[in-house]
């Protein structure tokens, strides 16, 4: 009996498949394709939320003159380049620690996981207060040790590392994912490696890493996208650390200190919803979309390469 593939499908099968897919297709059309096309349309217009006027390429030309695009893109890329690896590696290290501990593992797991349950805004505000150089307990403790702490969220050189610390503090969810992956690594592989004389590092490199590679890649892809959309923590930290409130003739400039925490999504929001330059904000949205796509495609290609290597 031959099971050769046939090119002839029963009539209506394609239609049935489309029918099954239709909820998803409708969702994609309404929540992705339509907004994307609208964004492109509005990016060629001058739109202040009241009046719509064709502007040709003006919004795109302005992108080349806008000094804050460069600043915010650099800040966002810094987060991708440093915060993401730091968070992933730290989560992995914590997961390794918790899975290997004989005693107190349950307690530590809880302690490390709890911060990820704290609401983002509350956690950020608390962090800024804890690290406040004038009144914060961290600064006080450091001074007792004879160390002069930096101006964490007030110094442009330290503000992003401080946000990275915040990210490390809240990495419990990723730690749990890595724990599950680590516990999935077959024990006999370690035993075989140990018999062959592999030390802990070699075992990690040759046994653990290849097995958890898909999870690692998942963590990297999701965290890169998350970093590209980084908004709330940076906005809250800036505002709380600056101490500035909006009043007549005075408004808060996002990115305090010295625009070091101004991320691309923040600038997009500011442009669209504070300055009412909605057309230009759509250009920024497209830029962010393009950058996210590029990063995602690169990571997925790497991932497929790693999978292929593993398969062979």
């Amino acid at each position: 009996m031959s099971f050769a593939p046939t090119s002839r499908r029963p009539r209506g099968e394609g239609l049935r498949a489309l029918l099954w897919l239709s909820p998803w297709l409708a969702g994609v059309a309404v929540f992705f394709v339509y907004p994307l096309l609208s964004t492109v349309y509005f990016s060629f217009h001058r739109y202040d939320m009241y009046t719509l006027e064709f502007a040709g390429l003006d919004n795109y030309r302005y992108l080349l003159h806008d000094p804050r695009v460069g600043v915010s893109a650099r800040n966002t890329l810094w987060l991708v380049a440093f915060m993401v690896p730091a968070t992933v590696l730290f989560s992995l290290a914590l997961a390794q620690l918790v899975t290997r501990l004989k005693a107190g593992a349950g307690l530590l797991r809880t302690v490390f996981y709890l911060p990820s349950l704290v609401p983002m805004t509350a956690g950020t505000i608390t962090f800024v207060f804890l690290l406040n150089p004038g009144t914060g307990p961290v600064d006080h403790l450091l001074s007792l040790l004879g160390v002069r702490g930096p101006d964490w969220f007030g110094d442009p050189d330290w503000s992003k590392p401080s946000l990275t610390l915040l990210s490390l503090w809240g990495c419990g969810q990723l730690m749990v994912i890595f724990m599950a992956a680590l516990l999935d690594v077959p024990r006999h592989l370690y035993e075989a490696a140990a018999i062959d004389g592999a030390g802990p590092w070699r075992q990690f490199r040759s046994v653990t890493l290849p097995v958890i590679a898909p999870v690692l890649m998942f963590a990297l892809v999701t965290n890169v996208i998350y970093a590209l959309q980084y908004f709330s923590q940076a906005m809250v930290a800036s505002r709380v650390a600056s101490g500035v409130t909006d009043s007549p003739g005075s408004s808060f400039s996002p990115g305090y200190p010295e625009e070091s925490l101004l991320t691309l999504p923040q600038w997009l929001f500011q442009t669209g919803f504070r300055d009412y330059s909605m057309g230009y904000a759509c250009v920024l949205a497209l830029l962010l979309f393009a950058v996210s796509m590029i990063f995602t495609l690169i990571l997925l290609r790497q991932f497929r390469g790693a999978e292929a290597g593993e398969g062979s």
Partner: protein
Amino acid sequence: MRLVPLAAAAALLCSAALTACTAGKEAGPSLGAPRPSGSASQALPAATVELWHGFSTDAEVKAFEDAIARFNQKYPQITVKATKGVQDDQITQAVRGGNPPDVAASFTTDNVAQWCRSGAFQDLTPVIRQDGIDLSVLPAVARSYTAFAGRQCTLPLLADAYGLYYNKALMKGHQPPRTLSELADLAKKLTVRDADGTIKVAGFVPSVQYYENSPSHLGPMVGAKWYNADGTSAIGSDPAWRELLTWQKELIDWYGRDKLEKFRKGLGDEWSAEHPFYKGKVAMILDGEWRTAMIAGEAKDLDYGTAPLPVSDSRPELYGSGFTAGTVIGVPKGAAHPQQAWELVKYLTTDTGSLVTLSNALRNVPTTKAAMESPDLVKDARFQTFLDIFAHPRTSTLPASVNSVFNQEAFAAFVAKWESGSVTDLAAGLKGVDKQIDDKLKLSGG
């Protein structure tokens, strides 16, 4: 592929935009139309007028209710439904969506130009003329921040004026300074440090990042100009800004920026009873008139005085003036009951009794000359300072601009860099601010 979050971001931006097509529709009669016959003020038909405002505390809301109650005595057929705590973006969304309130008030003047230019708020000029209202009862500065491009689309409800507060106990017998050099000298004299140089008491904190010290609030001290007549930036070409920033940086450097920053960050919240001025940590501050009421409530025993802001040594004629802005109120496009809405706006902004009621309760400056001179207005020497600043012919404001928020932020961001010492060429830096503002102006259609 995780594209959904990005799509959501795009959707967030553009779902708002998609309803733009509705923004042009007129949902109700316009104020420009002649009054329906038999509708002269008192004879207006019954209606429920929706009023949105930004006030939110119990005292503020009660003050508004009292003013509305007085309005109802005059117009019993008009019911006013007030909604508190409304921000500008909510007003914008409502106007765009074709479902605006009849009357809307905003705490800031930042969006007046945008509202006037786009027609989001109706031009009040026809009804002002029709009712014979003399706008000269308002100081010129208040007229300027409520209109744009010849359209008087809002009126001032209450004003804020900014002056100098000084802690008498910390002044060591000195009189409040009248010039910038006197202010710098006195700030140094009154500053108290630990042996290691840590600041314990600051005479005056010159940083623009300190509470109310924004560039727009400090600018009037030197008579600095924001815009040229054509709306382009004058920041780089006006030497007054260079004078102010040079003075400010010298004082910051005298404190030591790191020490000053550490001191600033250790201070209490601006809107709490821990305010450093109450606690004797800062001898002199720049602040608005509302602080008098806050001190009365939060630091009753504080012995303090108020004075106009010190001014440039070369501009003594500026002494007595200051910065002003305030709450504005108007009738959005598409208001269901524009004639009744106008009566409410007119009453709240021009009726002496109403303005005095609101001013006494909220401790803001009433905007008309009659209200400022009313015997019913509760005032002492400290509050009188702000009435005088508001009425001073040289008092200035942040002129209306379609990119007001952007312009303020661009300048404030530059000044923050200047303070930190990362700007080497002040003149070139200010020219850079000009370029940012002018480029944005072009993008906005001039």
